[in-house]
């Protein structure tokens, strides 16, 4: 029997605990970036990180008075690895906040892990409706959009242009199907009718069979959802098949964002809807674009804006609790009350955690998506299935 040992253990524990909390005050805030750094969406991952870091730099490298320490994991846009990857950040690196990701399937796995571990999650891109729908959580906020939003706005625009019969085409996966649903809702509310939905497995890019099908059905317009290499190929194939001369091609902005150099002439004059346009002539956007171009020697795009705003939302939350991440509930609540002064224009966060924002109609001119008009003002995702 050596009774002093429990005492020593207790003393040591107290010491460590005391040192720990003292450490936490001055210690950097651990931000886990889970983004695609390889694969189809690699460029997007880098741009988001750049945008995020730009805002942090503008605040002198601190958010809510805390230095930021980054932990990075490449999620490869692979949902089957997502749970393992997010656990590396949560369990191994003990991050305070998760930021990610681009692919919706990966982000859904992150949302689940964030809920299970009660970790804060800011989503800088993935638009899956479910994240701010059935999967919504008090500790989850999105700085980007829901797939439904740009789709719905394009539906409204198409109907107002007098389009009666439309066809849709996408990859058969969550993001595509949700975007199509949004379009169909906006379009049919305006009196149009979607005559046929075409789809192909992700990430298949053999479109020729489906283009032939479109030519055979002769709709008034086509609404397409693709991104990255698929978007480039679809728009080029559509133009090469001569369909753009008789059947206008509409889509959410992802169809023509960051892809125009590769799409070249085939994308000219296309109309798309998105929560951002490069040439928004506002002081905020001009300043943002200048700062980004200076810092990274390249032009920012919508993904950079979303990364930037993710940092803004996180910063607002941290400020409300003076950098004390332990007050997580207070912080989550503050992150929902913020009005974000974004390069895209001011927006607020819905109770479900999704931006309530203007959706713009843009037209492709040269290598730019030029602002034309506000397609729908202050559009809020219906957040179906969210019980918050």
């Amino acid at each position: 029997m050596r009774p002093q040992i429990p005492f020593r253990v207790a003393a040591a524990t107290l010491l460590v605990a005391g040192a720990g909390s003292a450490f936490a005050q001055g210690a950097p805030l651990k931000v886990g970036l889970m983004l695609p750094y390889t694969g189809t969406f690699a460029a997007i991952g880098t741009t988001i990180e750049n945008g995020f870091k730009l805002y942090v730099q503008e605040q002198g490298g601190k958010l809510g008075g805390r230095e930021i320490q980054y932990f990075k994991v490449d999620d490869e846009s692979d949902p089957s690895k997502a749970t393992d990857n997010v656990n590396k950040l949560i369990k191994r690196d003990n991050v305070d906040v998760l930021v990610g990701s681009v692919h919706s399937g990966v982000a859904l796995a992150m949302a689940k892990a964030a809920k299970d571990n009660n970790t804060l999650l800011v989503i800088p891109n993935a638009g899956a409706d479910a994240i701010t729908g059935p999967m919504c959580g008090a500790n989850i906020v999105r700085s980007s959009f829901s797939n439904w939003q740009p789709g719905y706005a394009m539906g409204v625009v198409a109907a107002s242009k007098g389009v009666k019969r439309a066809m849709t085409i996408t990859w058969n996966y969550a993001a595509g199907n949700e975007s199509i649903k949004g379009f169909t809702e906006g379009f049919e509310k305006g009196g149009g009718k979607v005559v046929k939905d075409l789809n192909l497995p992700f990430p298949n890019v053999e479109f020729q069979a489906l283009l032939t099908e479109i030519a055979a059905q002769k709709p008034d317009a086509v609404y397409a959802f693709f991104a990255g290499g698929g978007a480039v190929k679809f728009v080029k194939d559509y133009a090469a098949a001569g369909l753009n001369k008789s059947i206008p091609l509409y889509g959410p902005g992802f169809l023509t964002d960051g892809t125009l150099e590769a799409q070249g002439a085939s994308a000219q004059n296309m109309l798309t809807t998105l929560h951002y346009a490069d040439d928004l002539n506002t002081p905020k956007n001009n300043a943002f674009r200048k700062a980004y171009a200076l810092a990274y020697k390249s032009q920012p795009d919508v993904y950079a804006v979303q990364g930037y705003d993710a940092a803004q939302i996180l910063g607002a939350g941290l400020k409300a609790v003076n950098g004390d991440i332990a007050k997580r509930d207070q912080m989550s609540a503050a992150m929902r009350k913020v009005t974000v002064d974004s390069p895209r224009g001011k927006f607020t966060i819905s109770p479900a955690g999704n931006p309530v924002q203007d959706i713009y109609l843009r037209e492709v001119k040269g290598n730019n998506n030029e602002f034309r008009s506000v397609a729908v003002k202050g559009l809020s995702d219906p957040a179906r299935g969210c019980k918050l």
Partner: protein
Amino acid sequence: MDLATFLVQCLNAVQYGLLLFLVASGLTLIFGIMGVINLAHGSFYMLGAYMAFALSPLFGDWFFARLAVGIVLAVVFGYLLEWAFFSFLYERDHLQQVLMTYALILVFEEARSLLVGNDVHGVPAPAWLSGSFRLGELMSYPWYRVFSSVACIVVAIGLYAVVNRTRLGMMIRAGASNRDMVRGLGVDIRLLYRIVFAGGVALAALAGMIAAPLSSVYPGMGGSVLIICFVVVVIGGIGSITGALIASLLVGIVDTFGKVFFAEWSGVGVYLLMAIVLIWRPEGLMKRGH
């Protein structure tokens, strides 16, 4: 579906199938004759596409010069790669082959990322092929697609001639069916393998170069091609060029019409085809080396 649309869809199916054949033929050579499971084959396709992207500003409209230079580079690259890596794999088991060739995929992707970046890039078709002709009421068909099919047919005929009509082809076929006997007859099997491997790489790179103006170049483009190529090789019978051709066309037809008629199930169509063929003929449509 009216007759005109049906015919256009058949054209689409054949065109897709032929391009698949071009990539898969290289894989079936390497897989069937050398017995190496080469997961990096998709990377050679990507390499070709990026070569087309890199070489096109240098050669402009000298399209065939661009192809020729690309093929020479691919052969040299394949030859060196075989010497440095693959020649150590023949006696090893499949797991080690898979591990090393998978590692090569990662290396190639990272090298691409460092050299070219992660953006999507378009590759221009030569001006004399950039037009299109009308097909049906609304649609037009780009001449470049026709050209790509013709190029694939030419390569298929060339490959058939080499394998069935030349001394080298005879050694290749012999090597595929019994490598020890070939060695016993005094053929330098190491050199033969090196040539076959370089040829396989060149075929995949050529496919990438031809496909580049149609598909653009983007990160991870090799991955999707790789899987479908393994399907083609397995359906066709490992090591069989004729089998690969038939299988490619079958896959093209199933994929094209699957998308039109069974949109929700189009992802499984090709794999269903593979399952059915394997139940019917476990060795694939054609036997090894025929």
